[in-house]
């Protein structure tokens, strides 16, 4: 696992967060957030259950988010 950011922020003087790094591919990430919004804000699965599964997934994959 890396201990330092591997790709810089696409936005000057900003931290290399997920959004700022993926901004290097602006069209791709715009479409991703459209998809992500659809996934998180719509459908019949309760938001609490989605968040629970997200956290579980992050723990399993050693993700810091």
């Amino acid at each position, binding site marked *: *696992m*890396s201990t*330092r950011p*591997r*790709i*810089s922020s*696409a936005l000057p003087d900003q931290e290399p967060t997920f959004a700022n*790094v*993926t901004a*290097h*591919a602006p*069209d*791709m990430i715009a*479409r*991703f957030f*459209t*998809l992500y919004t*659809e*996934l998180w804000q*719509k*459908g019949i699965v309760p938001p609490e259950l989605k968040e629970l599964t997200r956290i579980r997934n992050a723990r399993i*994959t*050693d993700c810091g988010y």
Partner: protein
Amino acid sequence: MSWLDTSLINPDFEDVLTLRPELKAGFDSFMASFAQSSDVPSHILALCREQVAIKHSESIAGEDTGALVGAEALALAVAEKISYDHHAISDEEVSALVDELGEGGAVTLLTASAFYDVIHRLKQVWATREGEG
């Protein structure tokens, strides 16, 4: 065998996603963005997609990739690890990928490889067949 009701739906990837049309539209648009990007040559994306499929045992293409160098070799190395050993992708590999493709290309290629993996995981969980997603 799929756990989905096959009397109502064909158990392939595309049809399952169609159960949520807006989600499918967003997913298709997002996946199409990789090929539409000018940051990564299409043949490198195809190599990564095939490599991920091989890791999931859904391809028996088995092409000899030992002679590949540069961006192609790096892309394959990353795609091979991203399915089951993503923490093994090294700083040096990502740095070399950035050198070859630029930061936009590296972001696109890593994201594409990760989502090629997502498709295979979904197909296995849904027990679907066919469809490229």
